């Protein structure tokens, strides 16, 4: 990409921390475990004053929002949901870097009232990093329903920080939270966190290192002659005890991060520290510091253990649970994750969702198409009246407008139905259970159970499926899911598959209709099989070295919030995917039109290409026009069939077929056989991803290498499979002399 590590890093961080601070404006960070309702707290605090994007240079979502309270402005930064900030994953790294170098005026840690013990781990970690911590105990209503009573005053005293219980979904406690944020920022409340005291062996070492760190940090300020750098206070921004712990820990990544974020040269800091320590302890004593009894692994263990011990004590003291109360979630899980019901229930639900999507999308799809094509007629009329040249009308209306209209009318309705339904299941807490039920299948393919969710998403749209791979927190399995998502047919390919299978299998209607349904179903099964096979091969070859972890949290069941569901699924998914599709479709429409209409010699460019590819295409049981249509259909799979018809009929612009019967005639006239039909369907199922998906793979993986693989793998698979079927057909022909 021509960008050096240094330059990407520095611009990234500049952007990240470029939140202008004034006397009337504060920056607040929002941290928390996954599934704590952190985003609900964020939404309730900021309302609609927010925007999302990715963390610079990282493929982790970054949401920023703002609100005003008592005439002060608060910028709220939503950190990724993490269990810890030891930076063992990208999310944790992002969270830690912002807490370290973003210099927020206060940090709110959102915790789940029904799972306080686990959540307190993060609270303690954050308290070590900064003093201005506010604890927001969310889902207090849910806890009450489960007969869990929490003494938040007691916890506040125990932790030394303000604690606000709230139920963000109902808006309870939000005013108190705002008030507390205000008071902490204005120094009306000064939290003094009581951090964990570690084992003697660690504390002894800290006593030696911490003063040195302090000294060097303050010197760093003077060396550079400036108190602030990029708006970050270099000297006091970092807690010296925390940094001392990390040095003891030998956290190389963090020290590098400090190097690039603060103007103090931490390499010098480390050297200095080393020298000082050697001065004090002697050569052997220094060496012992790192290895004497506590190795790094053991040190991390001790730290986590001590923190969790504190968390246990707090839970014992301040949380009262009624253990006799029947656990509703467990009863539900008895069915949903049971041997007998689990999988049938899941298949039933998926069928219902697909059925609602396909049925429900038909009508709005045709309404939108009618509307948009009526506008096309109006535009054509207007172009004629204005006496614009024919080519301009062709390029703008028949090329660009028609393609975009096509993409919008085919993609919008199913996405607007499918995504909300999916989000409801997500909010309900059902999706992790599906991943749980199916994990054993995916495990055999060396993939993650959650991949089935990204595949389901792929039925709606592969680009959305690729984005959904974010939910897989294990690096290797995430890549596998990203690279293979394309093997499930999206709703842009379904119409093509259905149309072709109808043409060749259902001409007589009745029973053969079932045959065509079965053939499409068979293709889906084949797609799933190929997905698993490729997943297996990938993890055994290219992705072998990439780390893999499997932990899957099954959050409590929760009532979905319909408003939020609509918002996130419409704004975040539908509009996002659609706009990306349109940006690719518009220029592609123009190119297609040009290629079909510019004549070289006595035929169009499109024709020349098709003729050129034809021998190869015939070899794999297709023809030149089909492959050309797939290439030109790169921006969106739904335009493949229209392009094909355009080239067969040499109309110069895309057309929709009138009826299955007329489509059949056109295809048969152009030499289609059962093999052509089968291979076109196979090629459609297996070929390279559409432009939108390719762009999304690039965005999500941040690497051209993986993007190239994401294109290459399906292409090779599609060609291979088509070659195999074509060869089998040919052999049959020879033997039986058809």
């Amino acid at each position, binding site marked *: 990409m021509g960008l050096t590590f240094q330059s990407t890093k520095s611009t990234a961080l500049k952007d990240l921390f470029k939140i202008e601070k004034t006397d009337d404006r504060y920056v607040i960070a929002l941290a928390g475990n996954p599934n704590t309702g952190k985003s609900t707290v964020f939404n309730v605090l900021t309302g609609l004053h927010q925007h999302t994007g990715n963390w610079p240079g990282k493929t982790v979502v970054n949401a920023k929002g703002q609100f005003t309270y008592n005439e002060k402005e608060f910028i709220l930064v939503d950190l990724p949901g*993490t*269990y*810890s900030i*030891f930076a*063992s*994953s990208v999310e944790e790294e992002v969270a830690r870097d912002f807490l370290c170098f973003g210099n927020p005026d206060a940090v709110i840690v959102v915790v789940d009232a*029904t*799972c*306080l*013990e*686990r959540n307190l*781990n993060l609270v303690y970690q954050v308290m070590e990093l900064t003093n201005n911590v506010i604890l927001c105990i969310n889902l207090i209503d849910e806890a009450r329903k489960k007969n869990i009573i929490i003494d938040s005053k007691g916890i506040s005293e125990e932790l030394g920080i303000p604690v606000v219980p709230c139920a963000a979904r109902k808006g309870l406690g939000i005013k108190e939270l705002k008030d507390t944020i205000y008071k902490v920022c204005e120094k009306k409340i000064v939290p003094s966190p009581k951090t964990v005291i570690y084992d003697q062996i660690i504390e002894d070492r800290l006593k030696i290192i911490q003063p040195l760190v302090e000294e060097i940090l303050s010197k760093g300020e003077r060396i550079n002659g400036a108190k602030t750098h990029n708006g970050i206070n270099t000297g006091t921004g970092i807690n010296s005890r925390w940094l001392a712990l990390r040095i003891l820990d030998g956290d190389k990544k963090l020290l590098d991060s400090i190097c690039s974020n603060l103007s103090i040269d931490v390499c010098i800091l480390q050297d200095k520290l080393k020298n000082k320590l050697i001065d004090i302890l002697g050569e052997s004593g220094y060496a012992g510091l790192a290895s004497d009894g506590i190795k790094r*692994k053991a040190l*991390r*263990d001790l730290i*986590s*253990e001590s923190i*969790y*011990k504190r*968390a246990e004590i707090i*839970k014992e003291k301040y949380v009262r649970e009624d253990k006799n109360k029947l656990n509703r*979630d*467990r009863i539900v*899980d008895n069915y949903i*994750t*049971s*041997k007998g019901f*689990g*999988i049938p229930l899941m298949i039933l639900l998926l069928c219902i969702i697909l059925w609602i999507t396909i049925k429900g999308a038909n009508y709005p799809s045709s309404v939108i198409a009618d509307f948009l094509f009526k506008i096309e007629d109006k535009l054509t009329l207007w172009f004629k009246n204005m006496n614009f040249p024919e080519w301009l009308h062709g390029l703008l209306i028949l090329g660009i407008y028609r393609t975009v209209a096509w993409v919008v009318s085919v993609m919008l309705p199913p996405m607007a139905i499918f995504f909300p339904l999916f989000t409801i299941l997500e909010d309900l807490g059902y999706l992790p259970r599906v991943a*749980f*039920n199916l*994990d*054993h299948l995916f*495990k055999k393919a060396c993939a993650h*159970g959650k991949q089935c969710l990204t595949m389901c998403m792929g039925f709606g749209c592969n680009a959305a499926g690729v984005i959904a791979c974010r939910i897989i927190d294990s690096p290797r399995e995430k890549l596998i899911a990203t690279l293979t998502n394309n093997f499930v047919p999206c709703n842009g390919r379904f119409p093509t598959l259905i149309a072709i299978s109808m043409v060749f299998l259902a001409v007589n209607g009745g029973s053969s209709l079932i045959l065509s349904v079965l053939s499409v179903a068979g293709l889906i099964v084949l797609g799933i099989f190929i997905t698993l096979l490729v997943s297996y091969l990938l993890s055994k070859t290219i992705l072998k070295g990439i*780390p893999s*972890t*499997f*932990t*899957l*949290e*099954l*959050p*409590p069941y929760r009532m979905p919030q319909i408003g939020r569901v609509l918002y996130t699924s419409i704004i975040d998914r539908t509009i996002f995917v659609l706009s990306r599709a349109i940006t690719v479709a518009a220029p592609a429409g123009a190119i297609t039109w040009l290629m079909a209409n510019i004549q070289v010699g006595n035929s169009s460019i499109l024709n020349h290409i098709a003729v050129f590819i034809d021998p190869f295409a015939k070899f794999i049981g297709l023809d030149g026009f089909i492959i050309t249509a797939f290439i030109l259909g790169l921006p969106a799979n739904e335009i493949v069939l229209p392009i094909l018809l355009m080239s067969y009929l040499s109309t110069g612009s895309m057309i929709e077929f009138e009826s299955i019967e007329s489509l059949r005639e056109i295809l048969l006239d152009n030499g289609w056989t059962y093999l052509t039909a089968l291979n076109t369907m196979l090629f459609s199922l297996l070929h390279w991803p559409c432009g939108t998906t390719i762009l999304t793979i690039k965005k999500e993986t941040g690497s051209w290498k993986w993007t190239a693989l994401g294109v290459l793998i399906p292409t090779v698979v599609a060609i291979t499979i088509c070659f195999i079927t074509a060869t089998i057909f040919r052999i049959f022909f020879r033997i039986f002399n058809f």
Partner: protein
Amino acid sequence: MSRLNDIPAGNHAIVKDLLSDGMLRERMLAIGLTKGARIEVVRHGPSGDPTVYNIRGAMIALRKEEASLVLVTPC
């Protein structure tokens, strides 16, 4: 000492040690699989694996491979 995956559903066990490394170990510590933690084996998946554990109040599913890296004593 036994491994967490050998504990039958419905039973409890106390964590003694972790055999995992790197990122997986970090993750295990982060979710609370620290020495002395009391884990409840909640249920097995439809085909016996993965298994849901109640770890510090949260329901976490672990595969056999991961669970076998957690040394425990039954209680």
